[in-house]
């Protein structure tokens, strides 16, 4: 386009000495700004995987498996999104992210266990009210801890990857032990609220109620994140920071403040995910966070470090594949996520979506 307009422009004044040697031609005013190419191939992967399994299982079990996979994927996404956002913005990979998951779940027990009678009530409103309170408390506490963690532990080691890995690992060890000190080393039972127990039936397919709630919450979180990142000023700054942090700083924005805000938000999301995951498992142990972290890392790798959209797709993909694989071939289910990761990385070596400076 540009070359075709340039050539006639040069021919119009071939011998004018005052004209610049390479006349600049501007595109017409109504030309749209260059936009990033839309990349929808990864988006199609999730339905493709789900449909590919359909011939091998009966329809009711397919529905059950798919809903279970979606629910697990949504919970995983909630836990992983904070990690990938923090990595994208600050280039800090927080190996201690799992600690926030555990802390969130344990903090929720501070509300849920004393108010157990409310959970036993057979009213959805009361159940969800207590649950909402517990989640709020857990998120506030993990956000505060995240804020402190960023200031005390991570701030001195910005830009040093090796030390970051070691320090955050150390932070995770210490916080797991502290959980044991505060709440005791025995595992804590966390029963589901009365109205979320059991399953509803769609034809022959059983769908557990809690899984439906997990899907709804996951979708809400994704929608909220998407809107914040794409429709608000803060989101604009965050996206700009992911692309080029120094430039944002040069524009006069205090990127450190953005860092700590995003870190606290990511920790709060981990706390929310921890509460959901704890209710899903119905028991809490101090190392539940570090166990989940393995899956979270795989998701973040699959999605592409720093990409929220990739993280969402990666979480759904991994959870679905794990669910299908462990139903069809239980032994293979154990390694299915590694196989999935390798397959994705062979296709796209940096993950599904690449963000920022790699």
């Amino acid at each position, binding site marked *: 386009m540009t070359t075709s307009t340039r050539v006639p422009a040069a021919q119009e004044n071939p011998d004018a000495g005052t004209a610049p040697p390479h006349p600049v031609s501007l595109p017409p005013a109504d030309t749209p700004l260059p936009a990033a190419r839309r990349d929808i191939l990864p988006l199609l992967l999730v339905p493709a995987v789900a449909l590919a399994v359909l011939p091998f299982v009966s329809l009711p079990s397919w529905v059950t498996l798919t809903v279970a996979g979606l629910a697990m994927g949504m919970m995983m996404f909630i836990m992983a999104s904070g990690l990938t956002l923090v990595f994208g913005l600050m280039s800090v*990979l927080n*190996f201690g992210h799992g600690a926030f998951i555990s802390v969130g779940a344990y903090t929720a027990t501070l509300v849920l266990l004393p108010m157990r009678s409310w959970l036993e009530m057979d009213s959805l409103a009361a159940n969800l009210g207590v649950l909402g309170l517990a989640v709020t408390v857990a998120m506030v506490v993990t956000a505060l801890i995240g804020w402190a963690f960023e200031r005390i*532990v991570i701030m*001195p080691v910005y830009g040093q*990857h*090796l*030390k970051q*890995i*070691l*320090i955050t*690992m*150390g*932070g995770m*060890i*210490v916080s797991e*032990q*502290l959980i*044991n*000190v*505060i709440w*005791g*080393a025995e595992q804590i039972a966390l029963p589901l609220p009365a109205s979320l127990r059991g399953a509803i039936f769609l034809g022959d397919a059983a769908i557990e109620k809690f899984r439906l709630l997990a899907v709804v919450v996951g979708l809400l979180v994704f929608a909220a994140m998407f809107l914040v990142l794409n429709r608000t000023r803060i989101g604009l700054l965050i996206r700009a920071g992911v692309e080029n942090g120094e430039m944002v700083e040069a524009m006069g924005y205090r990127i450190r403040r953005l860092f700590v805000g995003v870190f606290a938000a990511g920790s709060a999301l981990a706390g929310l995910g921890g509460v959901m995951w704890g209710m899903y498992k119905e028991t809490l142990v101090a190392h539940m966070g*570090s166990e989940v*972290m*393995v899956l979270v*890392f*795989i998701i*973040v*790798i699959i999605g592409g*470090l720093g990409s929220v959209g990739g993280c969402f797709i990666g979480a759904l993909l991994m959870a679905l594949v794990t669910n299908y694989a462990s139903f069809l071939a239980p*032994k293979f289910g*154990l*390694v299915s*996520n*590694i196989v999935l*990761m*390798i397959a994705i*990385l062979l296709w796209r*070596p*940096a993950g599904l979506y690449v963000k920022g400076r790699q």
Partner: protein
Amino acid sequence: MLVKLLSADLPRSRLLAAILVAIFLGLLFAPFLFSGARPLNTAATICIYIVLVASYDLLLGYTGIVSFAHTMFYGIGAYGIGIALASVEEPTWGIALAGLGLALVLTVLLALLIGLFALRVRAIFYAMITLAVASSFALLASQLSDFTGGEDGRTFSVPELLSPGFTLMESEVFGRAVDGKLITYYVVFFGALLLFLFLLRLVNSPFGRVLQAIRENEFRAEALGYRTVVYRVWANVLAALVAALAGALMALWLRYVGPKTTLGFEVMTDILLIVVIGGMGTMYGAVVGATLFILAQNYLKELMGHASEALAGVPMLAAALHPDRWLLWLGVLFILSIYFFPVGIVGKLRLRSYLKR
């Protein structure tokens, strides 16, 4: 002679030299210095951990690679010997060596595969991928119970020379019967010593210098004409091989393999703690760190138990001093040492004597 054995990498600090000699002599004469099974067990664990941690230091301290798959290779070595010996009625050396050989081949293949796959990208990527692979491997080992014995692991008997019932001679030597346990201890000790000296030789060779160059400035090392990917993959393979051999020694000593003792994530965090506290980038850091750590693991817990009982009235503090919470204090020490003396104990000692000069 001694200089040559140590590959000209001397302690360079009088205090450090004294500590190292003390550790060496203590481990060499451990069966005669202490009586009972527990001290000998501690000594053998120290020997094996020194090798395991030193091989990890080759990656973390010398090359600047963070790997979480080191326990996987350690476990492969242990399971190689364990499964081979558990599968036969009459344990022989041939079977043990065949099992070890297979384990080593698997180790090399896996290390090459992971290395070629993940070492081309950034350090952080490698750390995550190894974490994922290692935990899946551990899960697999605990689930394939027909083959590996599952969570319970496998106990097996070792070749007759090493079995506890065997006695080499009738008379006692320095008040100690020369039985299979003693011979096993010395197999472990000298095996560990050889592997350690090999690692020391490796890091002080031109190859080791290139690894250090990669750690300091990868871009520059590449600009000087070294193919850094090849060096990193080789470092990975060699470290994995040594870790597998350490695992084999551990299996011989315990006459048992299980996921908890070899593949567990706790083992990995132990290794990390030891490397950092002992001193990254020095092989002697592994010696000092492993000795301190294992001694603390075995004996500090008792001390903490007493302290916890003494403080039984104070609610939080008593729980924090409970023997099971000893990792809490080591974790705090770990974080503090990364901030305030990242060179570790050995680096600190060397720095002090360097400044004195």
